[in-house]
């Protein structure tokens, strides 16, 4: 059985007086340990799909099931707890908290888990080690380069060992070298650590690093 199952999902938005339909019966699966790149033009529904997979948004109808849990029917409180345990989310603009060090930013998801300070510190160090930033753990985001910030954000996404890692344009704000580093890191997370990854991207070169590429256009899979 697939790790992620999207079944007959409809998603509508109300924009002013107009009803905008993003998905009209979308169905797709993501296999465990897969690394998928989602591509498509702006407004095709890539980010909306990512939000639905992360439980940040709900489908108007249909179901989204991740690792056997039907995300679309969970209460907001349960959904938050589920997200903390199962989802690692990486944003295009990193979204690290500027008042926290790299260590503290990565530690954030662990504050929600019943872990001792010592256990949290160990896990944070491992995550920062995986992304190659052990020596930057006391740096604030303003003291890091864009690539380092994004790697810190990835460390934050993997620190709780989530079931699914979702990335929304992770290389969109990076220079070529930093983008290559981040993409290499994602490949390593998939190959070495067996993480299931779904990445939204506009960049065809970035998509080439994934194991499969899905194209969305006007809410439908085109390839």
């Amino acid at each position, binding site marked *: 059985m697939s790790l992620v199952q999207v079944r007959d999902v409809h998603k509508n938005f109300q924009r002013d007086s107009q009803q905008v339909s993003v998905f009209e019966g979308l169905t797709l699966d993501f296999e465990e340990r897969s690394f998928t790149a989602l591509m498509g033009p702006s407004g095709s529904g890539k980010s909306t799909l990512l939000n639905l997979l992360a439980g*940040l948004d709900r489908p108007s109808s249909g179901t989204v099931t991740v690792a056997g849990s039907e995300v679309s029917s969970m209460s907001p409180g349960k959904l938050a707890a589920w997200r903390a345990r199962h989802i690692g989310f990486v944003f295009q603009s990193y979204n690290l908290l500027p008042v926290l060090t790299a260590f503290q930013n990565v530690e954030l998801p662990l504050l929600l888990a019943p872990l001792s300070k010592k256990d949290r510190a160990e896990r944070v160090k491992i995550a920062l080690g995986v992304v190659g930033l052990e020596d930057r753990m006391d740096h604030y985001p303003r003291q890091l380069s864009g690539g380092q910030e994004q790697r810190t954000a990835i460390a934050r996404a993997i620190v709780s060992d989530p079931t699914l890692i979702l990335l929304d344009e992770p290389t969109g704000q990076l220079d070529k070298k930093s983008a290559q580093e981040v993409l290499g890191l994602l490949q390593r997370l998939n190959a070495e650590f067996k993480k299931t990854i779904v990445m939204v991207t506009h960049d065809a070169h970035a998509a080439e690093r994934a194991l499969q590429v899905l194209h969305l256009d006007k809410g439908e899979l085109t390839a």
Partner: protein
Amino acid sequence: MKLIPLVLANLRRHRLRTLLTTLGVSLAMFLFASLRSVVTTLNAGTEIASASRMVVQNANAIVFTLPMSYRARLAAVPGVTEVSWANWFGGQYGDGRVFFGQFAVDPESYFTMYPEIQVPPDQLDAFKHERTAAIVGKGLMDLFGWHVGQNVTLRGTIFPGDWVFTIRGVYTPSNKALDDRSFLFQYAYLDERTEHRIEPGWYTLKLSDPALAPQVAHTVDDMFRNSSAATKTGTEKAFNQSFVTMWGNVQFLMNSIGMAVVFAILMVTGNAMMMTARERTGEVAVLKTIGFTDRTLFVLVMMEAGLVTFTGAFIGLMGAKALYSSSGFNGFGFLPGFDVTTATLAIGFGITLVLALASGLVPALRAYRLPIVQALRHVE
């Protein structure tokens, strides 16, 4: 507990804003404590009044005197065991900038009437045997650096001329709410030096039983109702309160100002918290994405509001307590025993709790209700 570092980090985000907001709360609470302490100190002055003492004054006003002939008639009223009398002198010392009360008192009856004014027996004896002697409160002695045996000259305003007194004793009040900055001298000295006969400003009666007070008041006032100087007799507490009310409705005034200050600072703190919340819309969305629940974020914002307000309140309230205790402030003699009471501190912290809830509630609810997807659009 795990969230406290996050709360502290958020407060460090705009250090100056946090500092100014905290200082604003401190100042508001300092003012609240100070203003309320004026009221409680004035009330304490009336609370220490003895239930077994009554004061007889001229029915027209305290500034009018009563005949000395009343003394014997008052002593004969059933229930009255002792009678004493005194007069306000109203002199100035030095440049007159420091105000303190000066009273011409009957040396034989005054100190038995007021056992809370404690004078060493040998000093009291010396006072009684010297017409120009004075007994001075310890606070006043310390203020001017006077010593026993020193001559002190007061310039009379009601009773003109320079009046020279010799300090023969120092009194210490048994209750700190009692003024320790009064200057007491012999009534006979005042009487002798003035051309016309001096009459008492008021009489003090000691009762055999406090329960007799209404009856004694009725008897005394009836006795002098049709005389040239009708009397107004009341308990010592009522007499003391009449001085407080001479200041106007102090309690209302002080409480009104105090509440206005607190309300103003509520606006300031609330605004600061709202600004902070608005600036962090994206971060709240990120935290929700990570898995922070709506409730946790609500608590986080409330903790921030609580930390700012309670830190400010602690500095303001405890600062007021420490400052007034250590400085011995007494309102230039008008507020003996001035102190920030435990009740004032408790009310101050109670107001702080309301302040924290009120200033934190709107931004906390905003964080609680924030839809993640819409908020993320702001940051992506």
